[in-house]
C-alpha cells in the first residue's frame, strides 16, 4: 500500500455535492437588492406613454395640462433626444439582412402596440402616471399585415420602408439530395406546425436605474439584465462614453429566461435622461408593459416533411419556415437568433443524410422576438419529434424503437449534422434508454392501455433532442452578429488578509453561479468555500463579457475559473515553497492549508498572503508574485447536451383539460457541479415547457392589439399544473473541455413542448387528431374534434 496517494484520494471534493447556495440568505431574508429596491437621493421616475396603434405615423403630440401635475419635471419624445443618443444597430454579416435601428422612443412612426412614444419624468411614479393621462398623440393609421403569412407577401404593407421588404432574414441549409430521398422513401409524413408566440414572464419586471456622476462625468446603469457587459459596450456607442466612464451593473436579478437578455430602448432612455437632467432616473416596467413590450418568443410556422425507409431509417427532411420576428431586429442577437436556429437544429440528434431547411424571418407589427429559454429548439424539437412519432405510427413501429434506430450512436461521434453543427460525444442513446428504464416503459404502455379500456383518454409521448451549449468561438450564437460570444474571463485574487475574490463577467440571475463557481474554485485552488467571494454582473469586473445566456456560464465561467485557479494555486505554492523551505512538488493546499508530504510544517493561506503582501522582505523581491490571475476560456466548439423526455398525460373527455400524470427527464450535462441546482433547473425548465405546451400564448387580434394583457390572460403554470419530475442524470465524459461541464439550464423548455404534444396526440389517437399547434388548450382540442366531426364548421388557427 502506498501512503502518498492516500491524502489526495480522501480529500472531499465540492464539485458534485449538494452545496447549499451562498446567495440564499440575503434573498430569503428579504434583503436581496433588485434594481427597484435602490433609491439614491434625488431619484426621479419615468413613466412611458406607449403606442396603442400597431402601425401609424405620429402626427402630433400634445402634452395638454401634463405639466400642471405636481411633481412633473420633464416630458420628452424622440425629437428631444435626437442629439443626445445614437441608435443601436443590430448588425449582422448575413446576406439580405436589414438591421432595424433601435431608438429609445418611437421616431416618426410606431410599429407595435406597446412601443414607447413619450417619456414623463417626475418626482414619483404616481405623478408620472398622472401626467400620462393628459397627453394625447395624433396618429395617422397605416396599413399593416399582422400575420406572418400575410406580411411575407410581396405586396404586403412595409413596416420599415428603408428595408424595402418585410422579409429581413433568409437562410437555407442543405445537404445531399433531399428531393430524391423523398422520391425513394417508403413512408413520408408531414405537418404544419405552429409554436405560437410566448413571453418569458420573469417575476421581476424589467427595471433600470441610471446615475450620472457630474464630478467624474460618468454614468452607472443598474439594470435587470443578464448581459451587462454587452449593454455597456453598446451604450458606449449610443451615449458616446468610454468604458471608463460607463459602468453597467446587474445586481440581484429576478429571473430572465431570455426576456432580459437584449438591449431595450428604456435602458438607453434612462441613461440619456440621467445625463441630461443630472439626477438619478429610474424606470420600472409594470406587468402590462412586460407582456406588451418585453421580447417575445418563437412564433414560427413550420411546414416540415420527413422521409423514411421501409425498415424505419430516416433518410430525408425538408422544411419551410416563416418566423414572425415582430417589429424590430433585436440587439445584439438580431432577428436571426430564433429563426435560424429552428432550421439549423431541426434534424435533431438523428442521422440525416438529406436535408433542406429554409427560413424566412418576417417583420410584423408586434413586439420583437428575441432570446427565450431554449431558443429555436423548442420549436424545432416540437416539429421534428411530432414527425418522428407520426412516422413511427405510420410504420407501425414503437416510437422508442424507431428513435433508437435513428439516434446517432456512440461510435459515430463527433457527428456533423446536415446543417453543420458538430455533436461531440454525448449520451443520446443512453438518455433514451434511461428515460424508458425510469418509468418501466413496457409496463407504462400496459398501464396506458388498461386506462384506455376504462374509457380514459391517456397517452404517452417522448422527445429526444440535443442542444449546443457553452458555445466557443468557432460559431456565433446568432449568425454574423456584432459581439463575441465565445469567451469568458475569470479574475481570481487573494488579498493580504487571505480572502479570495473571484470576479466574472457572467451575470447570475437565479442559476446559483455564486455557489457553483465557488465550488469549482475550491476544488482547483484548495481553499475554503467561505473564503471565496464570487462577484459577477458588473461590467467593471473584467474587460469584456457577454453575460449569462445560452447555457454557457457553467461551461465558460467554470472553465475560466478552473484555469485562473490553477495559475493562482501555482503562485501560492511557489510562495509557500520558499517560506516553508520545501520543494514545490511536495506541497499541496487543501481547505486553505498548505501541507508538505515531507514535513509536519504547514502554513495557512492567510499566513502565506500576509508574508507575500504585508511582510516586507519576507520573500525576495525577484521571487515575489501577487496571488492573482486573470484567465479567459474559449471552449471553441461548444458542448452537446442531450436528453430524452417522456410523459404520460390524460385528456378529460368532458372539459378537454390536459393533466400531466407522469414526467421523466433523462439528461446528460456532463460533470455535475451541484446536483441540487441541476435538478432545480430541470424542474423549472420543464414547468416552463409545460406552460408553453398547455397554457401560454401571446395573442394579437386582427387589429394588432395585444389580447393577453395580464397574468389572468397569459397563464403561466402554478403548482397544480406541474407534476413531480423524475430525473435521470447521465454524466458522459466530455473530451477537449477544461471542466467537463455541459450547459443545461435550458433543456427542459426544449423537450417539454414536444413531449406533451406527442403525449396528447397519443391520448387522442383513437379520434384521429394530431397536435400541430401549441399550446394545446381545451379550446384547440375542442376545435380539432369539431373539425373532424364536421369539416365544414372548422375554424382554423
Amino acid at each position, binding site marked *: 500500500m502506498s501512503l502518498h496517494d492516500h491524502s489526495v484520494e480522501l480529500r472531499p471534493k465540492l464539485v458534485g455535492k449538494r452545496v*447549499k*447556495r451562498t446567495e*440564499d*440568505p*440575503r*434573498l*430569503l*431574508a*428579504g*434583503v*436581496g*437588492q*433588485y434594481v*427597484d*429596491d435602490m*433609491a439614491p437621493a434625488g431619484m426621479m421616475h419615468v413613466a412611458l406613454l406607449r403606442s396603442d396603434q400597431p402601425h401609424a405615423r405620429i402626427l402630433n403630440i400634445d402634452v395638454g395640462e401634463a405639466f400642471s*401635475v*405636481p411633481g412633473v419635471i420633464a416630458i420628452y419624445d424622440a425629437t428631444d433626444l435626437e442629439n443626445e443618443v445614437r441608435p443601436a444597430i443590430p448588425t449582422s454579416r448575413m446576406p439580405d439582412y436589414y438591421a432595424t435601428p433601435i431608438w429609445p422612443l418611437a421616431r416618426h412612426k410606431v410599429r407595435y402596440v406597446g412601443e414607447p412614444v413619450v417619456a414623463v419624468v417626475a418626482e414619483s411614479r*404616481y*405623478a408620472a402616471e*398622472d401626467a400620462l393621462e393628459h397627453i394625447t398623440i395624433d396618429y395617422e393609421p397605416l396599413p399593416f399585415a399582422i400575420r406572418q403569412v400575410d406580411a411575407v407577401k410581396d405586396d404586403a404593407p412595409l413596416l420599415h420602408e428603408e428595408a424595402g421588404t418585410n422579409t429581413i432574414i433568409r437562410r437555407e441549409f442543405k445537404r445531399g439530395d433531399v428531393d430524391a430521398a423523398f422520391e425513394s422513401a417508403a413512408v413520408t409524413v408531414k405537418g404544419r406546425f405552429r409554436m405560437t408566440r410566448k413571453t418569458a*414572464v*420573469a*417575476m*421581476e*419586471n424589467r427595471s433600470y436605474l441610471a446615475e450620472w456622476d457630474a464630478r467624474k462625468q460618468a454614468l452607472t446603469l443598474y439594470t435587470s439584465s443578464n448581459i451587462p457587459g454587452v449593454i455597456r459596450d453598446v451604450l458606449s456607442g449610443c451615449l458616446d462614453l468610454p468604458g471608463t466612464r460607463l459602468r453597467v451593473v446587474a445586481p*440581484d*436579478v*429576478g*429571473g430572465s*429566461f431570455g426576456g432580459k437578455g437584449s438591449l431595450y430602448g428604456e435602458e438607453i432612455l434612462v441613461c440619456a435622461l440621467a445625463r441630461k437632467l443630472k439626477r438619478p432616473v429610474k424606470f420600472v416596467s*409594470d*406587468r402590462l408593459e412586460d407582456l406588451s413590450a418585453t421580447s417575445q418568443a418563437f412564433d414560427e410556422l413550420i411546414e416540415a416533411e420527413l422521409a423514411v425507409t421501409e425498415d424505419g431509417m430516416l433518410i430525408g427532411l425538408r422544411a419551410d419556415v416563416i418566423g414572425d420576428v415582430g417589429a424590430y431586429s433585436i440587439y445584439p442577437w438580431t432577428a436571426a437568433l430564433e429563426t435560424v436556429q429552428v432550421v439549423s437544429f431541426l434534424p435533431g440528434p438523428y442521422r440525416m443524410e438529406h436535408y433542406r431547411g429554409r427560413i424566412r424571418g418576417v417583420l410584423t407589427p408586434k413586439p420583437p422576438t428575441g432570446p427565450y429559454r431554449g431558443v429555436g429548439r423548442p420549436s424545432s424539437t416540437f416539429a421534428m419529434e411530432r414527425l418522428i412519432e407520426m412516422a413511427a405510427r405510420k410504420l407501425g413501429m414503437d416510437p422508442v424503437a424507431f428513435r433508437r434506430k435513428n439516434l446517432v450512436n456512440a461510435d459515430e461521434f463527433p457527428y456533423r449534422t446536415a446543417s453543420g453543427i458538430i455533436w461531440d460525444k454525448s449520451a443520446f442513446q443512453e438518455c433514451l434508454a434511461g428515460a424508458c428504464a425510469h418509468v418501466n416503459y413496457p409496463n407504462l404502455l400496459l398501464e396506458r392501455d388498461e386506462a384506455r379500456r376504462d374509457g380514459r383518454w391517456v397517452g404517452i409521448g417522448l422527445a429526444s433532442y440535443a442542444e449546443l451549449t457553452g458555445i466557443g468561438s468557432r460559431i456565433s450564437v446568432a449568425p454574423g452578429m456584432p459581439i463575441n460570444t465565445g469567451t469568458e474571463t475569470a479574475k481570481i485574487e487573494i488579498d493580504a488578509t487571505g480572502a479570495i475574490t473571484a470576479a466574472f463577467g457572467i451575470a447570475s*440571475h*437565479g*442559476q*446559483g453561479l455564486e455557489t457553483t463557481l465557488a465550488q469549482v474554485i475550491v476544488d482547483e485552488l484548495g481553499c475554503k468555500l467561505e473564503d471565496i467571494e464570487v462577484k459577477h454582473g458588473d461590467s467593471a469586473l473584467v474587460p469584456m463579457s457577454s453575460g449569462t445566456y445560452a447555457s454557457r456560464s457553467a461551461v465558460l465561467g467554470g472553465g475560466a475559473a478552473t484555469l485562473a485557479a490553477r495559475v493562482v494555486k501555482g503562485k501560492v505554492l511557489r510562495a509557500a515553497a520558499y517560506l516553508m523551505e520545501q520543494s514545490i512538488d511536495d506541497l499541496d493546499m487543501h481547505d486553505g492549508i498548505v501541507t508538505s508530504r515531507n514535513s509536519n510544517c504547514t502554513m495557512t493561506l492567510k499566513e502565506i498572503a500576509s508574508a507575500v503582501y504585508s511582510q516586507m522582505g519576507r520573500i525576495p523581491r525577484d521571487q515575489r508574485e501577487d496571488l492573482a490571475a486573470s484567465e479567459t476560456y474559449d471552449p471553441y466548439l461548444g458542448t452537446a447536451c442531450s436528453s430524452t423526455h417522456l410523459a404520460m398525460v390524460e385528456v378529460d373527455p368532458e372539459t378537454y383539460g390536459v393533466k400531466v400524470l407522469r414526467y421523466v427527464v433523462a439528461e446528460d450535462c456532463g460533470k455535475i457541479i451541484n446536483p*441540487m*441546482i441541476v*435538478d*432545480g433547473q*430541470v*424542474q*423549472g*425548465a*420543464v*414547468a*416552463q415547457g409545460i406552460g408553453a405546451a398547455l397554457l401560454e400564448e401571446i395573442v394579437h387580434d386582427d387589429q394588432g392589439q395585444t389580447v393577453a394583457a*395580464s*397574468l*389572468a390572460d397569459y397563464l*403561466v*403554470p*402554478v*403548482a*397544480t399544473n*406541474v407534476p*413531480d*419530475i423524475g430525473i435521470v442524470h447521465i454524466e458522459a465524459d466530455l473530451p477537449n473541455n477544461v471542466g467537463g461541464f455541459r450547459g443545461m439550464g435550458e433543456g*427542459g423548455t426544449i423537450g417539454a413542448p414536444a413531449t406533451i404534444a406527442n403525449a396528447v396526440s397519443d391520448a387522442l389517437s383513437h379520434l384521429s387528431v394530431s397536435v400541430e399547434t401549441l399550446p394545446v388548450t381545451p379550446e384547440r382540442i375542442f376545435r380539432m374534434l369539431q373539425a373532424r366531426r364536421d369539416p365544414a364548421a372548422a375554424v382554423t388557427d
Partner: protein
Amino acid sequence: MPEKKITLSVSVNGVAHTATIEPRMLLSDFLRHELGLTGTHVGCEHGVCGACTVLLDGRSARSCLTLAVQAEGVEIETVEGQGSVDQLGRIQEAFRQHHALQCGFCTPGFIMAITDMLRHHPLESDEQIREALSGNICRCTGYEHIVNAVRELARERGPLT
C-alpha cells in the same frame, strides 16, 4: 390626481410606524418606498402572482391590491420579520435546505403565504400543498422543491389542532 394626505398608524413586524400619505398609495409601495422594507416584491400589480403577499392581522393578503390606509391599526407581517441573514427563520431555512428558490424574487411572497398556510391549512397531502401554493407564481423552480419544503414544515407542525 393627488388627494389630501392622510395620517396612517400601523405596526410592521412589531414596530409602530406613523406616516402621512396619499390615500391612493398601495400598501406594497408604502412598505417598499416609505418604510424601505423592500423584501416585499411587486410582480404584477394585479393580484395574480402573489410576490407581494404580506400578513394582515395574521392572514395573507396581496399588498398590491390593498391601499395602505386600509391597514390602519393593523398588525402587518413581512418577510423581514421572519429572520435575518445571520439567523434565518424556520421557513427560510427549509427553503434553503430544499433549494426552493432560484432568483428569489417570488420567494418572500411564498414565505408569507406559507406562514399563513402553516397556521390555518391542513397540508396533509401533496395535492393539498400544491392547491394551497397555487395562489403564488414561481417561474424558476417548477414548484417541486417548494412542495418538498412545505411538506417538511407541515410534518414538523403536525396536524392542525
